[in-house]
């Protein structure tokens, strides 16, 4: 059975009741893995608390950090500081140099772009080529699509249509996330897959972007963060002298 994942469930950080409601709703709608964005200075206790809420609800918890650096220098510094503390690292690309650096840096998992400013969406062919080499995934949040209307939604759909075509032609994995801040912006995975027809994405690809792509990404990162990991395909099995 397909296990669906939502890597961007924006639960309010210090409101336990709301956290529980959103997480329970996510499980009810058919998700089995959720990524929750956390502030960079989150303590391990707070992470453990969220992990417990998710485990109690029957969900696999993934810690995620959203970076929105202004310069490439900021991005590199943040990655150096935070990469090993979070399972998923997402970068909101607010400028072209940041977008290019994020796309070629192997420590970045998800590339996202500002919704309100279509001119600042730098996901073009050059960006996609860099992203395909570094295994970064292009993330589409569905909440802005649901909450916007009129001209803003039309422009967003046009941008997404262009970007999905570029991503598919250069084999950049696409991840679909809810980006939901409240229960009313959460939808079932099949509903999201139906919504992707608005930007001409194939429904099988959309379901893949809601299940296999995020699950593979998380699995790969968990392996990397595990103790014995040395390089892809290489890990320490035992230390010390052979028996």
């Amino acid at each position: 059975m397909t296990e669906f994942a939502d890597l961007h469930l924006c639960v309010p950080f210090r409101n336990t009741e709301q956290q529980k409601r959103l997480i329970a709703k996510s499980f009810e709608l058919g998700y089995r893995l959720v990524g929750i964005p956390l502030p960079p200075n989150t303590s391990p206790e707070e992470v453990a608390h969220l992990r417990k809420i998710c485990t109690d609800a029957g969900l696999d918890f993934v810690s995620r950090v959203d970076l929105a650096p202004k310069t490439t220098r900021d991005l590199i510094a943040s990655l150096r500081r935070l990469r090993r503390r979070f399972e998923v690292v997402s970068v909101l690309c607010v400028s072209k140099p940041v977008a290019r650096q994020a796309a070629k840096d192997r420590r970045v998992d998800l590339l996202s772009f500002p919704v309100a400013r279509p001119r600042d969406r730098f996901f073009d062919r050059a960006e996609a080529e860099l992203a395909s080499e570094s295994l970064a995934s292009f993330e589409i949040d569905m909440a802005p699509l649901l909450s916007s209307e009129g001209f803003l939604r039309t422009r967003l759909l046009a941008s997404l249509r262009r970007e999905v075509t570029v991503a598919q032609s250069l084999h950049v994995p696409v991840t679909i996330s809810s980006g939901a801040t409240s229960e009313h912006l959460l939808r079932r995975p099949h509903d999201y897959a139906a919504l992707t027809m608005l930007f001409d994405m194939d429904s099988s690809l959309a379901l893949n972007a809601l299940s296999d792509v995020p699950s593979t990404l998380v699995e790969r990162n968990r392996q990397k963060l595990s103790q014995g990991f040395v390089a892809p395909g290489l890990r320490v099995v035992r230390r010390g002298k052979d028996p």
Partner: protein
Amino acid sequence: MIRHVRPRYLAIQVESEDTLEEEDVKEAVWTAVHQLFGEYGASKAGLFLVEYDKQKKYAVLRCGHKALPMVHASVASVTKIKDKPVSLHVLRVSGTLRALSKKCRV
């Protein structure tokens, strides 16, 4: 004889804080289809609200099989009814009402 327009029935769960009237749900779905696909798209949808249970917050919509992706996307895009936050979830899709009620058991 092959039927050119085969019906599809969608079981929908309505999630809202208030109890909604049948007309409100119908209008919300029609508005969503209009907003996303225009009058031309809406004319091809063959949309009809077959059943609505106010207490269980459950509705059944009918549309043509070719218009199913369009109607599914429209239903999922509804976020407000009468300025109140609402979400509509498609629980099941089926070709007959009998199969739909079997699958949903509501």
